[in-house]
């Protein structure tokens, strides 16, 4: 969740595609790749795959923490229906907030990425460092800083109040009673802020790969700046946009730090519920079921989204 993760995703973007006819490295045997793989893969199998299965098993337990949990075939599936009946608003809110944050990120990131990739000239690498620099500080400390900025008697809220913008926001049900902190807007703002570089860097990478003369060619062929953006730049940056939206949406949907620090219990997200169920209520089956549903929901959404956005051959 830090600047580093963002760096990695941008690196991944730039990996060139290679043909299938890569020659086997000279002087190695058939067993070599498996020997190299096995320690890392074993680690992932034991501490990622097995826990995911364990999560499923735990969600089907019956009993309680005090009396002990037991698993009876075929499992206590009622936990799922109970959990979903009770917590569907939090699920909905999570996806709504994450979706809003993703849209805001896109709106903010596209001009910035465009500027860095196509207009910044010699400043390019400096600007790239500036994009990730704020994220060198701890996620939590940054989010806490927003608490200061958006404080009820702070300069930002007072300015917005005097401009009657908070009235407008309240009318839109984004804020309440002339304040921003502890409202849905604050949570979405925090999510937008925290995942912005995940959107900027992939879009930057795909715009940077684009041949700048294509825009000139479009203008030469009677496309105004706006038409060139719509017909050439935007379609060519789609792979970056798709990657960016996924990298923003997935962590945002599971996040509970922003809802906890910038919101209230009234605007809690599914992450808050899972964490509460584990540590406050200690209802492990319900917590596991919610967690498992979140995973399935995100996987199916991602799958659906990639299918829709990705089937069209993108360059």
């Amino acid at each position, binding site marked *: *969740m830090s600047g580093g993760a963002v760096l990695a995703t941008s690196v991944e973007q730039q990996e060139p595609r290679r043909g299938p006819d890569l020659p086997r490295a000279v002087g190695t045997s058939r067993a070599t790749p498996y020997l190299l793989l096995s320690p890392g893969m074993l680690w992932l199998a034991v501490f990622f795959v097995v826990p995911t299965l364990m999560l499923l098993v735990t969600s089907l337990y019956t009993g309680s923490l005090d009396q002990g949990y037991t698993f009876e075939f075929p499992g206590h599936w009622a936990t799922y229906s109970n959990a979903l009946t009770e917590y569907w608003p939090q699920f909905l809110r999570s996806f709504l907030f994450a979706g809003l944050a993703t849209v805001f990120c896109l709106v903010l990131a596209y001009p910035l990425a465009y500027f860095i990739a196509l207009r910044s000239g010699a400043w390019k690498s400096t600007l790239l460092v500036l994009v*990730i620099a704020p994220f060198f500080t701890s996620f939590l400390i940054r989010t*806490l800083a927003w608490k200061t900025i958006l404080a009820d008697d702070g300069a930002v809220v007072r300015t917005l109040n005097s401009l009657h913008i908070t009235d407008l926001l309240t009318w839109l049900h984004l804020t309440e009673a002339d304040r921003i902190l502890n409202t849905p807007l604050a949570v979405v703002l925090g999510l937008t802020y925290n995942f912005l570089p995940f959107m900027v860097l992939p879009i930057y990478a795909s715009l940077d790969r684009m041949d700048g003369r294509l825009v000139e060619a479009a203008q030469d062929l009677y496309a105004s700046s706006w038409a060139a953006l719509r017909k050439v730049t935007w379609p060519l940056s789609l792979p970056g946009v798709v990657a960016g939206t996924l990298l923003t949406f997935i962590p945002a949907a599971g996040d509970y730090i922003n809802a906890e620090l910038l919101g209230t219990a009234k605007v809690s997200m599914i992450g808050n519920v899972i964490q509460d169920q584990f540590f406050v209520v200690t209802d492990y089956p319900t917590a596991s079921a919610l967690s498992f549903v979140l995973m399935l929901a995100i996987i199916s959404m991602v799958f659906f989204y990639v299918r829709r956005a990705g089937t069209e051959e993108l360059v």
Partner: protein
Amino acid sequence: MAVTTPSSDSSSMSVRRRPRGPVRWLRSRLIPLVGLLVLLYMFAPIFVVVLFSFNQPSGRFNYQWVHFSTNAWTNLCQVGGMCEALRLSLLIGVVATLCSVLLGTLVAFAIGRHRFRGRSGANLMVFMPMATPEVVMGSSLLALFVGMNVARGTGTVLVAHIMFCLSFVVVTVKARIASLDPRLEQAAMDLYANERTTFWKVTFPLVLPGIVGASLLAFSLSFDDFIVTNFNSGSTVTFPMFVWGAAQRGTPPQVNVVGSLMFVLSLAVVIATQVVRRRRSRV
């Protein structure tokens, strides 16, 4: 700017001047302007973090400016438990980095340098943890540890950190390997280097920048992780856990000092690597 008047034969033609005006000026600079505003938005909390590290708060919460003080900077470890948490986070970060870089580099070489049955499966396995929300990863591991009756503590935190750092290491190192020209190795072999010498004299030095990058990345991921850690730490307090706890009770300005230091140090590291890279490429 004088526009040269065309010769007499074109007197019927209207000569147009270079168009100017505030609208045109703004339009041509709209994108840089928006870009800079977005950057400003990204830096706003950093200013606040640094500014409030020099605050002398009146109560437990450091959300309002009272007056300037360097007290937090000079008495960093005065806050109970913070420096211990910081030390533990650094230790976990270093160990998690070493382990994940070792495991991840091996995997990266396997995927980046070999074609084998199950390669796409291995790729998927690496990709999955990056596409899973942290809440799910954290709760899955907790389910495992609870189910297996493993006591949560520094050990379980380490296991978790190595797991999620691993994927990022693989991706970073793999990208570096993929960008290498395979002819360099062939050239080395042509020049009488055997497999071992070729690897250590040619391949490894060329992949090293990727490994260094992956190490920095893994460290920052581990050092800053809260969600997964929160699920698996038991009573162990890492620095993000300390900040989380402090946020409920009241954050001392010393937290801002650490935030400012993190920012400055990381920026210094990045600038240094950039300078080194630029020097090397110039030679």
